[in-house]
């Protein structure tokens, strides 16, 4: 009961720090999702379409990436962005941009694999017809992505869920700096380490509510879209 009280208190207090942390979490994870999806969707659909140069390399790279713990990914990106690293001159370390980059890398393979899975059955279904009308590879890619869009959408949502729950990578590349790179998950980690367990749990509940909220909005949009385009169920 203590925890529920703490949660209610937190939300109703309208604490500015809390809301800026919530806003930053959403901004970073949504940005990362958009960026990862931008690359993962076409590549994932292309993977479902069959052989092309580099296909095996992409699959290998993506599966290995998924097997890495987020901390390791964060570390690798830290070394890249560090001032003594190759991309140091851009001064990206310990900024939200670094966190967006880290999360994009992390969720890219998830969206990629799920997109390929969504597009594969459709590709099989459409193959002969597209063969008979001499459709170019590019045309096939477009039509597959468009017609599989509702399953692909679910893949993107899965990516978002992974991003918003992530802590290992963002804490390394972001530095958990108060007021600029502190997000929900890193705050929970911090408060736990300070022994403020009720506060940490309350924040956790808010995080879950946040995730549910975003998911709900997305599902409403999806069913609106499906109602309008009744061809795709």
């Amino acid at each position: 009961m203590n925890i529920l009280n703490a949660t209610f208190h937190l939300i109703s207090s309208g604490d500015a720090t809390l809301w800026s942390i919530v806003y930053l979490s959403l901004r970073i994870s949504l940005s990362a999702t958009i960026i990862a999806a931008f690359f993962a969707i076409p590549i994932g659909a292309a993977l479902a379409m069959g052989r092309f140069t580099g296909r095996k390399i992409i699959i290998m790279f993506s599966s290995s990436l998924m097997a890495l713990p987020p901390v390791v990914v964060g570390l690798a990106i830290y070394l890249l962005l560090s001032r003594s690293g190759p991309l140091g001159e851009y001064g990206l370390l310990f900024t939200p941009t670094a966190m967006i980059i880290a999360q994009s890398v992390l969720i890219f393979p998830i969206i990629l694999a799920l997109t390929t899975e969504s597009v594969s059955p459709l590709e099989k279904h459409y193959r002969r017809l597209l063969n008979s009308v001499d459709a170019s590879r590019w045309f096939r890619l477009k039509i597959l992505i468009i017609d599989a869009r509702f399953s692909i959408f679910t893949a993107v949502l899965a990516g978002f869920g992974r991003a918003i729950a992530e802590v290992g990578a963002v804490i390394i590349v972001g530095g958990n700096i108060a007021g600029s790179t502190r997000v929900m998950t890193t705050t929970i980690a911090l408060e736990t380490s300070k022994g403020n367990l009720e506060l940490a749990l309350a924040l956790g509940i808010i995080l879950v509510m946040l995730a549910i909220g975003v998911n709900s909005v997305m599902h409403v949009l999806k069913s609106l879209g499906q109602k309008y385009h009744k061809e795709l169920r």
Partner: protein
Amino acid sequence: MQLKFNSVSFCQNGDTLLGPIDFELKIRRITNVLGYNGAGKSLFLEMCHAMINPTSGCVYWNDNQARDTKYTRGFIFQHRVTLYRSVKKNIALPMQTAGWNSKLIADRLEELLSMAGLESKSEEPASTLSGGEVQRMALVRALATYPKMVIMDEPTSSLDPSATTEFENLISKNANSGIKFLWATHNIKQAKRFADDIIFIADGKVSEISKAKKFFNNPSSIKANSYIKGL
């Protein structure tokens, strides 16, 4: 339209599924392709349309390679083969792959929908059409970009008699306007009504090519004879 098979064969896993085939035929109006199930009719038709490439030899239409001239032909499948989209968007497919602009597409769509008698269903999902409606849609889709040749793989096999008749009427109309048809069927009566020429396929080879009258009255092989008699 002149169809030529030049030493064509198709092998898979060490088995020769089709061929070797060598022939030249002028499609006068409607040529029916006959043969028992498994003889290789579908494979033959898909090779005519370069949907499958022969493992050796080449297929030519009017001395051009089949695979370079796909856009000059339409193709119709036996079973429902549609996009998960509206009737309109299904029919528009060949025009989109050909790069037509939206005004051209819209105008042509009006004609095609009316030809198929599907104006009222243009926005409906293609999946809600009946069997007969789907095949009529497939036909006008195949005709969308003004091909000279339409290849059909048993389009009426799964249709009831009245749908079959509707479909056949559409064929007649278009054949009369100058469209040529290369049409696989296992409906002997249908072939007798429509064919100018017959290609008979047996055991993966072109067993016989003759004018229809000659084929039905005096087939060259025992197999063809049994086939015509429905045995």
